[in-house]
């Protein structure tokens, strides 16, 4: 039943009242792929997931599995006949049913013989290491255990597609990492096509084959974790993936097609563009769009470098265990965030020389 080639979402639109919450969403997911919809709250990522599940009807576009139409505005396959699985942030276990009956819920609806139901339920519970809790009720389990029951309830149905709606957000930090590992291991093992919704970039990077970054209902970028992390497509994606220093600048000139000279206030900087960005930045320069640069706090170096030297006064220091976060201010009031090893001893008020490697500077327009 799981056999299909691709899940195809084309031109998906969704309104809540007059508000367009999903705007022209296009995505094709291959069988076995792990795709994450990443975005802040209100970006429409959960709505897309609900549309795919069939829990929310779409207002435009279509959803297909190969040639089978699930929803195109006219034909609509209800959720109970899509054979998808879903896991919710708040687990959504049936409180009146035992762990066994929760996991068996869907199998019983399929009218499978009792012994087969039992066998499948036990197998699924073994997969999430919960077989000893089979007779307990949800409220007797911890949050992590409850979410694993929800996961078992989903995989026991052998769904064609698994839809996970922020499944780890209600768990504490340690458990989240543990469950993340289990999810990844489960996917490696079962290869169930998975669509995962989260606002946590770490989760997205750790789990996904591909990430779709969403903002205000629109796709910002689709790519592998490496692509998204290293080469964000615009200022929003850069900011969301940790390029926390964002400054409005002026481009003074191009040298060749990859070397850009920039004025940040009265500081002169040089950026060396990656291949992917050269057309984009040339376009910003030639069309007089408002340029911004972004730099990761951990890419900024201390000391005197070959170029892009800046002097800052340290304002605030945060100790974060493995590293320290420094906030510095330049003489003309530009704030710079720097992340360095924890053993570096600086005090608030110190004047420090820093430099930015030119290939670590990304240039974007503020308009897209």
């Amino acid at each position, binding site marked *: 039943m799981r056999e299909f080639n691709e899940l195809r979402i084309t031109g998906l639109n969704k309104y809540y009242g007059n508000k367009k919450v999903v705007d022209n969403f296009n995505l094709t997911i291959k069988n076995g792929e792990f795709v994450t919809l990443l975005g802040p709250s209100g970006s429409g990522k959960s709505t897309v997931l609900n549309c795919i599940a069939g*829990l929310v009807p779409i207002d435009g576009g279509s959803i297909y599995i190969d040639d089978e139409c699930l929803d195109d505005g006219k034909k609509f396959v209800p959720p109970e006949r899509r054979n998808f699985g*879903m896991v919710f942030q708040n687990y*959504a276990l*049936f409180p*009146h049913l035992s762990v066994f009956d929760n996991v068996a819920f869907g199998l019983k609806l*399929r009218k499978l013989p009792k012994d087969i139901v039992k066998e499948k339920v036990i197998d699924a519970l073994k997969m999430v290491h919960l077989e000893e809790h089979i007779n307990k009720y949800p409220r007797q389990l911890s949050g992590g255990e409850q979410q694993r029951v929800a996961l078992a309830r989903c995989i026991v*149905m052998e769904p064609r597609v698994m839809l996970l709606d922020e499944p780890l957000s209600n768990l504490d930090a340690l458990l989240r990492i543990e469950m993340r590992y289990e999810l990844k291991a489960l996917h490696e093992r079962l290869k169930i096509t998975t669509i995962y919704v989260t606002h946590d970039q770490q989760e997205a990077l750790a789990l996904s084959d591909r990430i779709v970054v969403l903002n205000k209902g629109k796709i910002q970028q689709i790519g592998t974790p490496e692509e998204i992390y290293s080469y964000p497509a615009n200022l929003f994606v850069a900011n969301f993936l940790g390029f926390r220093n964002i400054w409005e600048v002026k481009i003074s000139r191009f040298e060749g097609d990859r070397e850009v000279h920039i004025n940040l206030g009265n500081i002169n900087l040089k950026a060396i563009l990656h291949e992917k960005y050269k057309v984009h930045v040339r376009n910003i320069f030639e069309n007089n769009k408002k340029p911004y640069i972004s730099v990761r706090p951990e890419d900024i170096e201390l000391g005197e470098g070959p170029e892009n030297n800046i002097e800052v006064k340290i304002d605030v220091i945060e100790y974060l265990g493995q590293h320290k976060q420094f906030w510095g201010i330049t003489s003309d009031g530009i704030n710079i965030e720097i992340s360095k090893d924890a053993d570096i001893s600086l005090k608030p008020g110190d004047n420090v020389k820093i430099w930015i490697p030119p290939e670590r500077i990304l240039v974007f327009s503020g308009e897209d």
Partner: protein
Amino acid sequence: MGRRNIITILLFLLPAFFYLSFLFIYPFLYGLNLSLTDEKGNFTLENFIRFFSDPWDANTIWITLKIAIPATLLSILIAIPLAYYMRHGVRGEKFVTLLLILPITLGSVFIAEGMLTYMGPNGWLNKLLMFLRITDKPVKLTHNYWGVLIALIIQGFPFVFLMLLGYISGIDPNLEKAASVLGANRWHIFWKVILPLWLPGITMAMSLNFVMNFTVFPSAVLLGQPSGPTRVISISAFQWAFEKFNFHMSSAVAIIMGIVELIFILIVMFIRQGLYRGSTVAGKG
């Protein structure tokens, strides 16, 4: 726990303790004592024997049950689908809720007066029915069984509905979503998810509504035939107390009322346990 803490707790309990002692425990024990004694204060079961041996009194139990049970069941059966439909909120919900609260605030006498005119032989309802040729002579809906039944439903339905709506709105909507993704259609979702979780609320609303209906007094007097078919048990208690001035007998009647209500609630609980034996276990832990 420190000494101060215990004193604080006791102080906080004081108002509730006074309230319960003076307004419930003392009157209840006083009434129980009255019902089990004669005029001279000697212990006797005579009051109860007298009630059950006189059909004029004993029958009031059946008369009241015949009104109270259908009124309760009808209110619940009308309220269930409506509350189910409105569980995720609907447009104009505040207006609907207001309409429903009105009969509660108006009080039973006001409703009875309104019904007497509106549903009486010359009322609008009968005029309309005759105009539409549904009937050729007025349908008698006041001063009989039906009048009392309708009045009880008008008063009880909003109460039951609001309780049921409150309860079902508290059921996580994600449970329905989860069930439907797992292959459950609307029918399955209602019977396997919503109803088992709703049942505690339904039984509670049913029990409270039954107690309200079983103690009916004004509607039975104003809209029924208090000397015959709608001579409910509270009328019997009233007459013993304030027409024959026998407080021992009237207390006995009140105790009997309480016992019947208790039996009804126990039966409802028993049926609920039987319906979802496994499910109610979820209440523990």
